[in-house]
């Protein structure tokens, strides 16, 4: 934003003040995220820069918190670091276990959310779709409804799947309420199980898939599918050879959003998961509430690096999608 040549001195001063203010706001946005990175290399168990760190003395820095990530929860952390030590890490280290859980839950939740969400977005972007607006509102609602409410609802329903129904008896005449319970009938429940937490995370990720895929479908040229059909392609071929390549960037960024939602979700895990299904954010929650140590900062640093990678992927996809669809980038 260039300053116009007719600007008065006062306006010039204001303009530079404005740029400084913007700089400070950007600092406010980014500094808290970057500050954890140097602090995670602290040699002391403090959350602030020590004298040695500020003097860039190598002794002030160490990898001890990253090392403690590996050994935390191990059966025999002091053994020599050979193959059996690494096996111990793989099977017993807490952070490795929660990472496995996060990845398993995240991947399956993403698959469910992406497949169902993409199909629905295709239907929603057709002009013939009845009650389009209402259905869209319902499908986006998991993003809007406070997570504590969703998690509470899932806690009740997942631990005792079923539904209440009205009962009428005639002698004496009474209207009551009965409850059909899958748990009582068949011993079926979803709480404290992998499928339960996967379904919960899938439904929380769905709005993101819908939003990104419908955004890609805006301006999708419907005549392309007609052209494919007129050239003899059946609907399946049309979908995989014509529609899919065009909406793929949207689908992938929707999937990434869904994965990140699951990867970062803690409240549903708090409510409906058991010890077996603890995830990274759940373990961080424990760490922050109980024994906060720079170990948490080491985890945070790794997560920041992952999110930088994800952001870069999504940005590249967005640009590719805009190029493919012939939309000039914003």
């Amino acid at each position, binding site marked *: *934003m260039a300053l*116009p040549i007719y600007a008065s001195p006062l*306006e010039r001063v204001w303009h530079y003040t404005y*740029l400084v*203010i913007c700089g400070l*706001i950007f600092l*406010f*946005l*980014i500094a*808290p*995220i970057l*500050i954890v990175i140097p602090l995670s290399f602290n040699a002391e168990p403090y*959350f*602030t820069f020590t004298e040695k760190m500020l003097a860039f003395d190598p002794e002030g820095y160490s990898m001890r918190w990253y090392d403690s990530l590996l050994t935390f929860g191990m059966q025999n952390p002091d053994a020599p670091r050979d193959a059996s030590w690494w096996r111990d890490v793989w099977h017993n280290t807490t952070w490795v276990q929660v990472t496995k859980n996060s990845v398993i839950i995240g991947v399956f939740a993403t698959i*469910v959310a992406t497949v*169902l969400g993409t*199909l*629905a977005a295709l239907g929603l972007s*057709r002009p*013939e*779709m009845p009650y389009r607006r209402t259905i869209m509102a*319902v*499908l*986006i*609602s*998991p993003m809007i*409804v*406070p*997570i*504590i*409410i*969703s998690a*509470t*609802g899932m*806690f*009740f329903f*997942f631990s005792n799947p079923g*539904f*209440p129904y009205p009962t009428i008896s005639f002698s004496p005449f009474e209207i009551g*309420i009965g409850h059909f319970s899958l748990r009582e009938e068949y011993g079926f429940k979803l709480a404290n199980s992998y499928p339960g937490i996967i*379904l*919960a995370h*899938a*439904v929380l990720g769905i709005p993101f898939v819908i*939003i990104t895929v419908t955004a890609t479908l805006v301006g999708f040229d419907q005549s392309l599918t007609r052209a494919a059909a007129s050239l003899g392609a059946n609907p399946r071929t049309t979908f995989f050879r014509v529609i899919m390549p065009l909406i793929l960037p949207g689908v992938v*960024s929707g999937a990434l959003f869904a994965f990140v939602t699951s990867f*970062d979700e803690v*409240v549903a895990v708090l409510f409906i998961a058991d010890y077996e299904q603890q995830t990274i*954010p759940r373990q*961080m*929650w424990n760490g*922050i509430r109980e024994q*906060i140590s720079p170990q948490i900062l080491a985890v*945070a640093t790794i997560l920041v690096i992952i*999110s930088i990678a994800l*952001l870069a992927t*999504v*940005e590249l996809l967005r640009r590719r999608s805009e190029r493919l669809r012939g939309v000039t*980038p*914003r």
Partner: protein
Amino acid sequence: MTDTTALLTTADGKPLKSALAKSQGRARRRAFLLVAPLFFFVLLTFIIPIGQMLFQSVYNPTFTQAAPNLVRWFDENPAGSQIDEAAFAALAADLKQMKTDKTAGSAGTRINYDMPGTRSLFTAAARKADKLEPPYREALLEIDKTWGDPMLWRVMRSAASALTADFYLAALDLTRDDTGAIISVAQDRQVYVTLFARTFLLSGLITGLCLVLAFPIAHLLATLPLARSNLLMILVLLPFWTSLLVRTTSWMVLLQGQGVVNNVLVSLGILGEDGRIQMMYNQTGTIIAMTHILLPFMVLPLYSVMRPIPPSYVRAARSLGASSWTAFRRVYLPQTLPGIGAGALLVFILAVGYYITPALVGGADGQLISNLIAFHMQKSLNWSLAAALAGLLLAAVLALYWLYDRVVGIDNLKLG
């Protein structure tokens, strides 16, 4: 071909109108079939669970199941009838049953919600239930005088119907007096309305702060050349993609007593060593961390509205003699209103239901309504009250969501 009233037909002779209707119907069904799997998925894993939770807020059968005889007595005798020996006999019979079924605790807890201090009344009486002899009235009064309290009988009558509005009353700091009229609870026990008010107040404050911080940078991003604004946009999007817990942890590191912010202030000589500011585990912590976390949700809609505003409008206003402030206020600002509305509504909706950040950095006075719902779910185990509070919060959020749909349109929700 002169008969213009003849129906237009398709090649195979069907009326065009019905053929069109048929084909449109087919297209509608096809579109619906694409949406249906997801719709039922969301219905099953999201809508029904929430519905069932709401049902819990008006339906609590713990007392009716534990005290069938009392329920029958209440059915036969309308409100205001004399609490006679038959009533006490029914109570004694139920207490005996509670002792065998070990339900005195849960039944007492249910009454305790509406009349604190009565849980032990039930457990103590159930323990001695086998020794109860007629006349039951005297026998029970001998165990505890409270059994004669009309308030207790009023509460038990209310709990004797499983369908109840008691939990919504409690969630609004209301209760019933001896005659059953609705009154406010004692001043020192009014928790929930205050907390709702605080939640909305803090959310409003956070929304305002987000707007103040987001406006300048959105304007800067919208007026810079694309290449540079895309680069700066990364600074907005990176927090958006970073784990919520990471951001909350960062703020804990920055704001605590021995944290980076305090250390910088002390080393600059602004604060004395003993003058360190308490910015964590209180409202300040909640406000700062939540403003940071929700800021991208304000910047993105503002940016997408500001980008297409042609700079020539402001220039035209200036050339017509407007001062830069007037040009901003009268020409630029009105054009950004849709973005302000969209961003403010979205941030407010998200802030009202926030849980994690207040729970970790909020301390005692930085807690929001979500944290109280979690408290009743996990600690006090008054699930019906938790459900009633959740119902009220949900109603507020859905009203705002409806407003958002009307004002902004859900289709315009953008991510990054």
